[in-house]
């Protein structure tokens, strides 16, 4: 049974220095509030896993929480670069950032393998590209029936996965709808999981296209209204497109980023 905790308590209890942490949500339901809570609690030496690092990891990387990033596409979608990510890779600021780089298909299958209790997954991928030369979690495998050569990727099993969903009930059952991305796989692949939700309700009325995560498959649920902002939560709020532009100006240099951190993250310290 998932415990219902405050976001602060949930992060304190589930995310530890040195952990491998996945925050998932593919363009929709990106768990921003949880990301900022991790910054606020000054976690260090994290291995961050996420298909699309997005603004949420630009913030964590800039704040010095990460020692390594495992990812498949690291841009500010529709705007341009993630400047904190680039600064870390190109200039080791605020510290060196090791990277482990895949394609979307590879990352998705690594989560599938993790959720399935398998050590690896097979796909038609990476052929002819330079990625396998730099990423040791990509290898080749031979089909025992046809002799065909295919790609194998190792499973991802984060210490903790964090996602954002629309709703949970008081027993901790989680309901997500709209684009569901790779969230189920991320939760099931992880040793521990936290689901932040727009609201905890008495009854989860069925919604077409819903994906349900039973309470007993989740470690903790925390209420975090607007916890996906500036991404969107279908049925609750739209994407804040201006924020993505705004982030470009904040993330572009170290001073403006540091000022943002102090004002928008650390100054909120003590908040629930």
């Amino acid at each position, binding site marked *: 049974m998932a415990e219902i905790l405050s976001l602060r308590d949930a992060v304190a209890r589930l995310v530890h220095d040195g952990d491998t942490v996945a925050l998932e949500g*593919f*363009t*929709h339901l990106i768990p921003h509030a949880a990301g900022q809570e991790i910054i606020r609690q000054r976690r260090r030496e994290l291995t961050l896993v996420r*298909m*699309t690092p997005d603004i949420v990891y630009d913030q964590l990387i800039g704040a010095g929480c990460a020692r390594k990033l495992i*990812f*498949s*596409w*690291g*841009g500010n*979608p*529709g705007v341009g*670069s*993630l400047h904190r*990510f*680039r600064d870390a*890779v*190109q200039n080791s600021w605020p510290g060196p950032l090791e990277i482990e*780089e*895949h*394609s*979307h*298909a590879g990352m*998705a*299958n690594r*989560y*599938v393998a993790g959720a399935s209790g398998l050590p690896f997954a097979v*796909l*038609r*991928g*990476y*052929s*002819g*590209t*330079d*990625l396998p030369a*730099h990423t040791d979690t990509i290898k080749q495998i031979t089909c025992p029936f046809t002799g*065909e*050569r295919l790609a194998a990727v190792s499973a991802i099993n984060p210490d903790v996965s964090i996602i954002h969903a629309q709703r949970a009930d008081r027993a901790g059952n989680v309901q997500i709808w*709209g*684009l*569901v*991305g*790779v969230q*189920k*796989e991320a939760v099931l692949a992880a040793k521990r999981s936290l689901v932040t939700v727009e609201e905890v309700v008495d009854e989860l009325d069925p919604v077409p*296209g819903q994906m349900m995560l039973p309470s007993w498959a989740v470690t903790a649920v925390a209420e975090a209204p607007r916890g996906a902002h500036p*991404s*969107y939560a*279908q049925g609750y709020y*739209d*994407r804040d*497109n201006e924020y993505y532009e705004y982030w470009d100006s904040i993330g572009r240099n170290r001073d403006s980023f540091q000022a943002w951190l102090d004002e928008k993250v650390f100054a909120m310290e003590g908040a629930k």
Partner: protein
Amino acid sequence: MTATTDERTYTSDEMMSIAAARALGRRRTFPRGGETQHREQRCFVGIGLPSTAANLARRTHAPDLVLIYESGTLGSKPGRLPASIGDGILAETADAVISVPEVFNYWLQPGRIDVGFLGAAQLDKFGNINTTVIGEDYAHPKVRLPGAGGAPEIAASCHEVYIVVRQTRRSFVDRVDFITSFGHGTGKGDREKLGLRGAGPTLVITDLGVFRPDPETAELVLTEVHEGVTVEQVREATGWDLKVSPDLSTTTPPSEAELATLRELKAA
């Protein structure tokens, strides 16, 4: 931005979008069920110019075009341009909404998608794409780019790949610094050797013209220049010894209807 100084009433980005839209949605004959039949074309769409082109095609000559977004929507029919591949309108108007692993495993990988649209930070003369790093040293890049995303497997598994890119000597290079997505490798036959099932890049559309691989060598050859663009201008913006098709033509300029529909789409 346009590199030319003529008095065209449209931008070079509009020309690119319209040229890309025109390439889409041609119904073709496929063997299926022991018979051949015409069917709708299916297109894997990224945000930005590809999404603009695909939605323009749907609104003009290709109403049956099936749009697939990697965020997990099959058959989206958005009434306006989506702001991102996560825009709710894509899910709300889709035939089916599926998980991201399913997009790649059940729909892209088995070759169910006809056309994949890709962009490029660097593109070489064999259609290989770099979106990973600029510079020879992966560990210490001059510029760290976003990376692969869905592109390597789109390039591998779609029946054809259309590349849309603004053309400069920096983007059109003899050899990419890093192969993120495989085009034709070092020439004809390389895809077959790797067991890749799709035909790879069959069309490259830039702000200056249109390129297609030479059937013999797979090297990209200039086959169209856009209105007001000279071959010399294209050559100057190409980082290799450019080959020009003997049948070089000029791209039909945007029609009033195309431009009006495109501008309406962008304004909505």
